[in-house]
């Protein structure tokens, strides 16, 4: 900013000449910081991919280099064949997609009720929802295990799937916020048409809440796909292991076969990367309304 002391001038300047054209030194400094920082952040990521393509000998000699001198795609072949990868992947998919559907259904329903059906005790109940948001899951971890043990569900996928159908306070809160912002004339119109409440929710409100549903689903995907504590508690047999649990077991048994470990890590990360690149905008949306506003 040069010697501008006039009242309106900074605004005019801001409008037609971006600051990076005005202050070249600052721009250069910013770019240097940005590039160096980006390098630090992305380097381990690149290194993971480079390592996953090396031979065991190559890993020992290449140190910090990310230059791929060899392309051993065989590591990926080994990753999916040397242990029942597809079995684990299926378990991971089951314990991700079904809970997403369950959470979206139960939470949007409850969120809608809290936003649009203002009846007696609704406020009190919503306060309870908010309070349970602060409750750490670890307090109920042990007794929940006993509950599922009583139902004979230990070492099945059910303990990882069923709770999702009973709502989660954080997402109920998100859906409530979203529905509360929709115009209430929608409801009036639907009532005049003789629509029942459930029909109104399903046919009028839920389709309009699509951005929220997509954003919540993506957030949930990242959470469920990478869930480790749940499987670590409930799953013992090889048959029901999810990918993160399998990778953890793999790390402790084959901890020295680094290329294989990295290839498996890359494979686990790929679905998240794909979703990120396909749905970048929706992720930003979701983050905007999950960010405590």
């Amino acid at each position, binding site marked *: 900013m040069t010697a501008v002391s006039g009242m309106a001038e900074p*605004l005019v300047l801001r409008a037609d000449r971006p*600051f*990076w054209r005005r202050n070249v030194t600052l721009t250069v400094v*910013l770019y240097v910081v*940005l590039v160096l*920082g980006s390098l630090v*952040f*992305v380097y381990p*990521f690149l290194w993971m991919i480079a390592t996953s393509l090396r031979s065991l000998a190559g890993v020992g000699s290449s*140190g*910090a280099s990310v230059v791929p001198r060899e392309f051993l795609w065989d590591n990926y072949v080994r990753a999916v064949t040397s242990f029942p990868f597809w079995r684990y992947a299926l378990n991971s998919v089951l314990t991700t997609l079904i809970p997403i559907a369950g959470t979206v259904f139960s*939470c949007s*329903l*409850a969120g809608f009720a809290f936003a649009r059906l203002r009846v007696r005790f609704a406020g009190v*109940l919503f306060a*309870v929802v908010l309070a349970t948001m*602060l409750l*750490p899951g*670890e*307090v*109920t*971890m*042990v*007794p*929940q*295990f*006993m*509950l599922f043990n*009583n*139902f*004979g*569900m230990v070492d*099945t996928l*059910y303990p990882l799937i069923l709770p999702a*159908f*009973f*709502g989660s306070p954080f997402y109920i809160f998100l859906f409530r916020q979203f529905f509360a912002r929709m115009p209430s004339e929608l409801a009036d119109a639907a009532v005049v048409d003789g629509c*029942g409440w459930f029909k109104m929710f399903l046919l009028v409100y839920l389709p309009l809440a699509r951005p929220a549903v997509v954003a919540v689903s993506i957030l949930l995907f*990242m959470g469920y796909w*990478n869930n*480790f*504590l749940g499987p670590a*508690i409930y799953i013992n047999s090889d048959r029901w292991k999810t990918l993160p649990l399998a*990778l*953890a077991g793999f*790390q*402790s048994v084959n*901890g020295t076969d*680094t290329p294989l*470990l*990295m290839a498996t*890590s890359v494979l*686990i990360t790929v679905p*998240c990367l794909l979703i*990120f690149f396909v749905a*970048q905008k929706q992720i930003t949306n979701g983050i*905007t309304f999950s*960010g*405590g*506003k």
Partner: protein
Amino acid sequence: MNPLVGRLRNLAASWGVPDVLVPLVPFLLLLIVVYAVIALVAYTARRRWPRADKTIAFWLFVSPWLIGFCLFTVGPMASSVYVSLTSWDLITAPKFVGLANYAEAFRDPQVAQALKVTLLYAVISVPLQTALAFLVALLLNTELPGMRLFRTVWYLPSLVSGVAQMVLFLWVFNPQYGLMNDVLGRVGIDGPGWFNDASWALPTVILMSLWTVGGAMVIYLAGLKDVPSNLYEAAALDGAGAVRQFWHVTLPQMSPIILFNALTGIIGSLQIFTQGFIANGGPKDSLLFFVYYLYDNAFQNFRMGYASALAWILFVVILALTAVTLRGSAFAVYYETELSRKRRRR
């Protein structure tokens, strides 16, 4: 397993229900019974008070959450209080021992170590993460060409999470072949043992946690975009430079978001588990995070009573730390009210 559940399962199996679905049968039956009762109540209420359809709809809509709340939160919490007063290995009957579990927890040196490690992690990593995420967001909020690419690059690492991240960083910080010590070696520094060194293990986990600040950074970025530009213009008119604009506009406007993220960060950091698990508690229990110790007691040693007592101790710690943060931040957070928003618009 509950004997009734066992009988129902045998029945289901004899009726030809596929093996995979058998464990589900008793649970589904319970759910059907619960919803039959709810439907009956709703139907009767509808007949008696035809105009209360809104109330009935409300309770039906929240019923999944309400049932889950009773079944997975209230019920377990209540039973957790009782179990924490017993000695129980899941096989033999629970034996009432009074407060012995809590007394043991206070004497147990590993509990002290777990609390120390976990609290240190929370107290150091959360402020660092918050500050770094916020600074990066500020940097990425400038309107330089190519910023979209930089944003993607800084966010990317937070997609590598949980076990995959830990597996990667065990290798990044490998003292012999790892990325870190090779880089340090090139500038003439003899790198430490990182995860293998009891005094370095925790700092290493904290360092590693900074790699994934992208998640919080995006939240701040969204918040920064929402700061009304007329506030900046007004400040500029009053002669405030970039620094003063930051202190008097950006920071107050962002403070509720920072607080929210710091709070969820604290709660999340106290629940850290995966890193401790993969590192087996670290050398000399240096990564014995509380939840990992709890897990170890409950699901490796099957000391359900002791683990429940530990869970309650964790609960109190989280509650206390949350309260302290809320109290300490009350003076520093600016909450925009409807009134002030309207006033500004005028």
